[in-house]
């Protein structure tokens, strides 16, 4: 489904991109959205931010409240469907739009959901495979030791695996210091982490242990839900590992405090 426009190298005209910020970036970490805009512009895109956006509806949907999700999904579709491309700095929100809206909706709305799905991309996939951002050197310095958490929805629904690694190599000169069992869930799972805290706590602890075992200074990832979870656990245990969104690293933004660190 996400194969279109592959033959544009480089794209002949500026690609017009609508950014779906995601509610977690909007509320907790605007720096992720600003970094995304910077990267998209570096890739030669014209970026718009539809102002009426809120949330893609995952909390209600994953809890099984389909009735509450349908109108929200329709609202997102109506807001974004006029865009040439929609880019989302989160694998799970992109997965929600690309895979779950078409499952949830029926009839005309399903067709509209499928059309939107065909032009919606997660940020690193868009930068690498669609906009084909030119290798260039942003900060941070390539000597940084970085490990990477593959968020489940990004990995399994949106096939995000190599793109963030390639981008870190091409834009920052960074080779990922891989953590063990990188494809196992960190225990976030939306409301799961609050409904079943003890199990979630065990899972995030394992993830943090694996990240710390790499000796990396920074843990990066593409989904703020996972990152808030891991950062919060590190904070609780007083472990010093910086947790940052991949967009921040790629754009060279090292001035913003890592997630969960005061200033």
């Amino acid at each position, binding site marked *: 489904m996400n194969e279109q426009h592959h033959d544009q190298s480089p794209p002949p005209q500026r690609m017009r991109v609508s950014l779906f910020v995601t509610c977690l970036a909007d509320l907790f970490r605007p720096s992720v959205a600003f970094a995304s805009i910077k990267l998209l512009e570096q890739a030669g895109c014209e970026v718009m931010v539809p102002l009426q956006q809120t949330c893609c509806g995952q909390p209600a949907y994953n809890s099984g409240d389909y009735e509450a999700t349908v109108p929200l999904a329709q609202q997102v579709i109506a807001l974004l469907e006029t865009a040439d491309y929609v880019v989302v700095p989160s694998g799970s929100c992109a997965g929600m739009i690309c895979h779950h809206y078409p499952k949830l909706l029926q009839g005309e709305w399903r067709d509209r959901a499928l059309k939107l799905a065909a032009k919606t991309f997660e940020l690193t996939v868009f930068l690498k495979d669609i906009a084909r951002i030119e290798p260039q050197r942003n900060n941070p310095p390539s000597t940084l030791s970085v490990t990477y958490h593959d968020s489940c929805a990004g990995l399994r629904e949106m096939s995000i695996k190599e793109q963030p690694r390639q981008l870190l190599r091409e834009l920052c000169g960074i080779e990922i210091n891989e953590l063990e069992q990188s494809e196992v869930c960190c225990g976030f799972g939306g409301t799961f982490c609050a409904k079943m805290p003890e199990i979630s706590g*065990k899972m995030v602890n394992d993830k943090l242990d694996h990240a710390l075992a790499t000796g990396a200074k920074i843990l990066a990832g593409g989904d703020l839900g996972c990152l808030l979870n891991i950062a919060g656990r590190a904070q609780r245990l007083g472990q010093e590992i910086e947790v940052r969104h991949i967009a921040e690293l790629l754009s060279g933004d090292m001035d913003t405090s890592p997630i969960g660190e005061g200033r």
Partner: protein
Amino acid sequence: MEQHSDTFLDNASEALKNTGQAERRDKIALFASQIRTAAIDSFEGFDDLRHHVKKIRQHSLDNLDYYLSQFEKEAVHNGNQVHFARDSEEFNSLVLDICQQHDARRIAKGKSIVTEETGLNSFLQSAGLNVMETDLGEYIIQQAGETPSHIVSPALHKSANEIRELFQQKHDLGHRELQKTSDLVAEARNVLREHFLQAEVGVIGANALIAENGYSMLVTNEGNGDLCANLPKVLIICTTIDRVLPRAEDATAMSRLLARSATGQPHSCYTSFYSGPRREGEIDGPLETHFVLLDNERSNILSSDYREILECIRCGACLNHCPIYTSVGGHAYGSAYSGPIGSVLTPLLTSLEQSHLLPNACTSCGRCAEVCPANIPLPDLLRDLRHEEGIKKLSAPRWRYGLKLHSWLARHPSIYQTLTATSIRILHRLGRKRGGFSRLPFTSGWTSQRDFPAPQENTFMQLYKAKMKQNNER
């Protein structure tokens, strides 16, 4: 089925406290996933085969009445007796009747998760029969008075040391110490061999029923199924109605998926086909054979939105790859079926009221669906069960109303953005110094395990709108 799924959270909490067991579970999970990956990587046609088998399973279930009738006709033609049981009670009674018709006192039993579902052992025992499990794992947990913690490896939760202690307690060992693992296996084998020879009735399960010839197929790694089937005078094969496949080659195609997914083997050590009782001139085999086929809600599942769950081939891969199963172990689920398959099946076989926590034991990470050889969309089915949970108002009201409120706000962008702008500013001011909160109202689940990271100073929408305004004024 005796069930304790309503206390899943307490069971899980208990399981997590035993850190030694939790560590063992982590190691086993890693090993199980590595051997599966190795087996599938070295077998090129896995994906094609899984699509092929999926089509066959769908076709069989679409025409279940036809293939069941065909199976029954062929099996009877081969000299078997075929019985259908609507529920666990009927099932257990049918098996007991057969045993009593033959004045049987001793039963040798192969592994059958279906009989765990119906509680057959305790039913037969309370009628005075001596039931001996002969699969090593099942034998161990029977000696320990426990239930299976895994649908393929029932004694997965037991370490070699625990098994040694168990045998020291239960067996008359004299001076033998059973130091090596092979000593333990030999000890069980000796005890079981005697029982195989004495049992009047053998009870085994089936991985598939084959409609075209009326045979059943069983895969095992110990060969105990064949001894149960061939040494006693009477054989009873217990399974469920959804196991039927049209042709023998369909069953073998399925078994190629099964062994790789379950234990990383290209084939199980034993793949056996049972045709019926001993025929004239044959020197061994049972004199009488029965099939007892359980429905227990499966007909209802077939006509529901959850029918894909009947395509499960019981390999256990979803358990081995579920981070929740591997964190808390199988007993926490309080059901014969644990892990993702159990979290779907248990509410459907019993009631959502008793087991609505199980579909919530899921982060939607999708690993189960990724490894499922039957391509069952387990996360979708679990979410659909959560949908039903909401409709039946079984979930906690604070969650139901909280999420409704969130959705309502998200549908009203100007209210949402005003409200979030203010709240985020306050949260930032309170948390900026430390970077987060160790406690915060309404977040006790979150903060019991981790800090709540403080947000940046303003929402993106606020900052972005201010920037737009600035640009316009310029």
